[in-house]
C-alpha cells in the first residue's frame, strides 16, 4: 500500500477515534456533529501539533540561546557545559514525555475498542493494516520529528562543530522512538483483561492497572519537574565528578554528557558510538513495542478464558446488603480492573505530587503547601467522582431497573473517591503532625476528607439531576462546570476563610457542618 493511500485510509480510523472521544463526553453524536467534530479535531490537531512542536523546540534550545547572543567561546566553559547539559536533558525528557502521552492515548483507544478488527475481513495485507495502525496511533506525534533537527542545528550554531549537533539530534530521535515503543507496549499490556479468580489472574490485573497509573503519573511528575531540571543540573554536576565515568553511559544522562564529550576529540568517538547505540536500541524498542501492540490488536483481549470451573455460590454478608455499599464495591472493583478509572482515583496523589517541586524548593512553607494540597484535592475529587458517574456509560438502566435511588448512587460515588483519598490524606496529615509539629495538620487532613465527601455529594447531586434509566452518558457542559466550581467555592470557601483567620479547630466545625448539609441534600433525593 502506498504511503499516501495509507494516510487517506487512516483518516477513517482517526475519525473513529474522534467519534469515540466525542461519545465519551456526550451521548447523542449524529453525522453532522461528527463531521464538525472531525473538522475541529483536524484543526485542533494541526494547531496543537504546531504549538507543541514549537514549544518542544523552544524548550530544547532555550538553555543555548544566551550563548548565541552574543556568542561565547569556551573561555565561559562552565556556562557552555551547563547549557549543553541542560539542553540535552530537557530535550530528551520533554520529547519522551510528550510523545509518550500523545501516542499512549491514541494507541490505547485503537486497541481497547478493537478498531482494527473490521479491517481484518478486508483484502488487505497484514503489513498494510500495520502501517494504518501505526499512522493512526502516532499521527499526533509525527510533527515532533522536526524538533531533534532544530535542536541539532542550534547546537551547530552554538558550538560550531557538527558532532554535538549529530549526537543531540540522534538522542532526540531516540527519545521519540523509545516513547512510541513504550506507549505501544503499555497499550498492549493494559488492554488485556485477565479473567478468573486465580492468584496469577489477580496479580496480572493488578500489575496492568498499576503499570498504566504509574506511567501516566510519571509523565505528570516529569512535566512538573521540568522547571527544576536546569537548577538541579548544576547541583548534580557537583556530585557527578567521581561518577562521571559511569553516568555518561546511562540514558538520559548520556544525552547531556554526550554533548559535552563531543567537544573533545578524544571522547568524541565513544560519545558518538553510544549515541548510535541508543538510537539503534530505541528503534528496536519501537519495533518490539509496536509488534506487541499489533499482536494484541489481532488477538483476543481476554486472557484466561476457556478454563471452565464450577464455583460454589456463597451468599454475601448481611452487613453488606445495601444499595450504597453495592455500588461502592462495584466502583472500587472496576477501578482496580480498569486502568482509566484507577487513574482517576489516583488524582489526589497527583495533586500532592504537583506540589512536590514547590515543597522541594521551600521546605519552610511545607505546612502552607500541604494545606493548599488538601484543599486542592477536594476539587480534584469532585471531578473524579463525576468521572465515576461518566464511567457508568450506558449501564444506568441496570441500576435503575433494579430500584436504586439517586441518593444511594451519589453517596457511593462520593464515598469511592473520598475513601481512596482518606487512605492518603490521613497518613500524610499524621506524618506532617509527627515531623512538623502541629496537630493542626492531622485536623486539616481529616477536615479535607469531610469536605471532599460534602463537595462531591453536592456537586454530583446537581450533575445527576437528569440522570435516569434512559441516560446513555452522564455529561457536564460548560455551564455545569461553572456551577460546580461555584458550589465547590461555596462549600470550601467558608472553611478556608475560617482556617486562615481563626484556626483549624473552628474550621473543622465548618467541615462538619458542610458534611451535614451534604447529608441533608442526599436525603432529599429519590
Amino acid at each position, binding site marked *: 500500500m502506498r504511503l499516501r493511500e495509507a494516510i487517506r485510509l487512516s483518516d477513517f480510523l482517526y475519525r473513529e477515534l474522534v467519534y469515540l472521544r466525542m461519545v465519551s463526553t456526550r451521548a447523542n453524536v449524529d453525522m453532522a456533529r461528527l463531521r464538525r467534530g472531525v473538522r475541529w479535531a483536524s484543526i485542533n490537531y494541526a494547531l496543537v501539533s504546531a504549538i507543541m512542536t514549537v514549544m518542544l523546540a523552544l524548550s530544547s534550545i532555550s538553555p543555548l540561546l544566551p550563548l548565541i547572543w552574543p556568542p561565547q567561546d569556551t573561555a565561559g566553559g562552565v556556562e557552555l557545559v551547563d547549557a549543553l547539559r541542560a539542553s540535552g536533558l530537557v530535550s530528551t525528557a520533554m520529547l519522551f514525555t510528550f510523545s509518550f502521552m500523545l501516542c499512549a492515548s491514541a494507541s490505547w483507544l485503537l486497541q481497547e475498542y478493537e478498531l482494527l478488527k473490521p479491517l481484518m475481513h478486508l483484502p488487505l495485507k497484514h503489513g498494510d493494516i500495520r502501517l494504518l495502525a501505526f499512522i493512526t496511533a502516532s499521527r499526533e506525534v509525527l510533527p515532533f520529528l522536526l524538533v531533534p533537527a532544530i535542536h541539532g542545528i542550534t547546537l551547530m550554531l552554538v558550538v560550531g562543530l557538527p558532532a554535538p549537533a549529530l549526537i543531540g539530534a540522534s538522542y532526540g530521535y531516540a527519545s521519540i522512538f523509545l516513547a512510541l515503543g513504550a506507549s505501544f507496549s503499555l497499550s498492549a499490556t493494559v488492554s488485556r483483561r485477565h479473567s478468573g479468580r486465580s492468584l496469577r489472574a489477580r496479580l496480572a490485573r493488578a500489575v496492568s492497572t498499576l503499570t498504566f497509573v504509574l506511567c501516566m503519573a510519571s509523565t505528570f511528575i516529569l512535566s512538573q519537574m521540568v522547571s527544576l531540571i536546569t537548577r538541579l543540573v548544576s547541583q548534580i554536576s557537583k556530585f557527578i565528578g567521581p561518577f562521571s565515568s559511569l553516568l555518561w553511559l546511562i540514558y538520559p544522562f548520556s544525552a547531556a554528557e554526550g554533548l559535552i564529550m563531543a567537544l573533545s576529540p578524544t571522547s568524541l568517538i565513544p560519545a558518538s558510538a553510544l549515541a548510535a547505540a541508543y538510537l539503534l536500541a530505541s528503534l528496536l524498542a519501537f519495533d518490539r513495542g509496536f509488534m506487541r501492540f499489533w499482536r494484541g490488536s489481532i488477538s483476543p*483481549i481476554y486472557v484466561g478464558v476457556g478454563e471452565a*470451573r464450577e464455583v460454589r455460590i*456463597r*451468599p454475601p454478608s448481611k452487613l453488606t*446488603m445495601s444499595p450504597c455499599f*453495592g455500588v461502592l464495591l462495584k466502583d472500587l472493583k472496576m477501578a482496580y480492573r480498569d486502568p482509566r478509572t484507577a487513574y482517576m482515583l489516583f488524582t489526589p496523589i497527583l495533586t500532592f505530587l504537583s506540589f512536590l517541586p514547590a515543597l522541594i524548593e521551600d521546605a519552610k512553607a511545607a505546612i502552607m503547601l500541604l494545606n493548599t494540597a488538601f484543599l486542592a484535592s477536594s476539587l480534584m475529587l469532585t471531578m473524579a467522582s463525576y468521572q465515576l458517574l461518566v464511567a457508568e456509560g450506558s449501564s444506568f438502566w*441496570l441500576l435503575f431497573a*433494579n*430500584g436504586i435511588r439517586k441518593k444511594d448512587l451519589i453517596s457511593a460515588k462520593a464515598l469511592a473517591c473520598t475513601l481512596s483519598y482518606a487512605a492518603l490524606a490521613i497518613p500524610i496529615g499524621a506524618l506532617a503532625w509527627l515531623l512538623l509539629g502541629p496537630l493542626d495538620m492531622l485536623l486539616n487532613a481529616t477536615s479535607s476528607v469531610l469536605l471532599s465527601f460534602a463537595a462531591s455529594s453536592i456537586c454530583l447531586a446537581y450533575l445527576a439531576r437528569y440522570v435516569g434509566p434512559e441516560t446513555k452518558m452522564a455529561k457536564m457542559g460548560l455551564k455545569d462546570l461553572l456551577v460546580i466550581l461555584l458550589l465547590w467555592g461555596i462549600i470550601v470557601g467558608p472553611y478556608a476563610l475560617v482556617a486562615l483567620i481563626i484556626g483549624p479547630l473552628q474550621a473543622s466545625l465548618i467541615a462538619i457542618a458542610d458534611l451535614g448539609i451534604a447529608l441533608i441534600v442526599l436525603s432529599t433525593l*429519590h
Partner: protein
Amino acid sequence: MPAEVLARARDVRKSYGVVKALDGVSLELREGEILGLLGPNGSGKTTLIKILMGFIRPDSGYVEVLGMDPYDNPDVRARIGYVPEELALYNSLTPKELFDLVARIRRLEPAAYARRLDLLVSSLGLKDRMDDLIGSLSRGNKQKVAIILALLHEPDILLLDEPIVGLDPAVARIFKELLYEMRDRGCAIMFSTHILEVAEAICDRIIIMHKGKVVAEGAVEDVLKLAAREKTLEEVFLEVTGKAHEVYEVIKALRGEA
C-alpha cells in the same frame, strides 16, 4: 374468577419528534399469563415496555402497573423483572459480582438469594462462567446473565424484550420452562420477540403492533384465524402489517417467477 390485571395501558401515545412511536395503544397484562408482543422493527414494542417500566413518560394516556404510575413511583420496580433488548452490562465485573450487586441494590435476603441464584445458574448452564469477566462472555452467556438478573428476586411482572436472542435451543427450552413455572405461580409476563414460532408455542395471548398501533390482539388460536393463506403466525403477521403483498412479490422475483 378473572385474573387480576397487574398492568394496563389505555390510549397511550408517545412521539419522538415527528415519529409516532406509540399511537393510541391500549392493553392489559394479567397475572398468570404470558402475553406475546410482536411487530416489525420500529413498531413501538420497546417504547411500550419502557413506559411500563417507568423509564419513559408517555405524551398522553393512562399507564398503571401494580396499581401505580410506574414513572412517578419507581419503587414499583421492586416487583418487576426486566430484560432489555440492548444489553449494557459491566464488562469489568464477573457474573457473580454483578448478581451480588443487584442483590444488594434489591436488599435480598442473602441465604434465599444464594439458593435462588444457584438454581438459576445451574438451570441455564452458567455455573462454570461465574468467575469470568462479563466482557469475555459470548452473546448467549451475556443474555443468560441478563435473564438471571431479571429472575433473581422472583418478580410479579416480567417484561422481556427479545430475551431469547443468542440462546442455544437447549437453554431456550429451559428458559421457556422457567417462564411456565413463573406463570403458573401467578407472574404476569410480557414477551417481545421476532421469533414467531416461539411466540406461537409459549404465549397465551399475543398482540401484534404496527407503526405504533395494535393491529391484532387475542388468544393465539383466535389471531390465527386472521390468516388468509396458511394458518401460521407468520402469515397473520404479514397480513395485519400490510406486508404480505410486498413480501410475496420479492419472493417471486428471487425465484425468477416475476
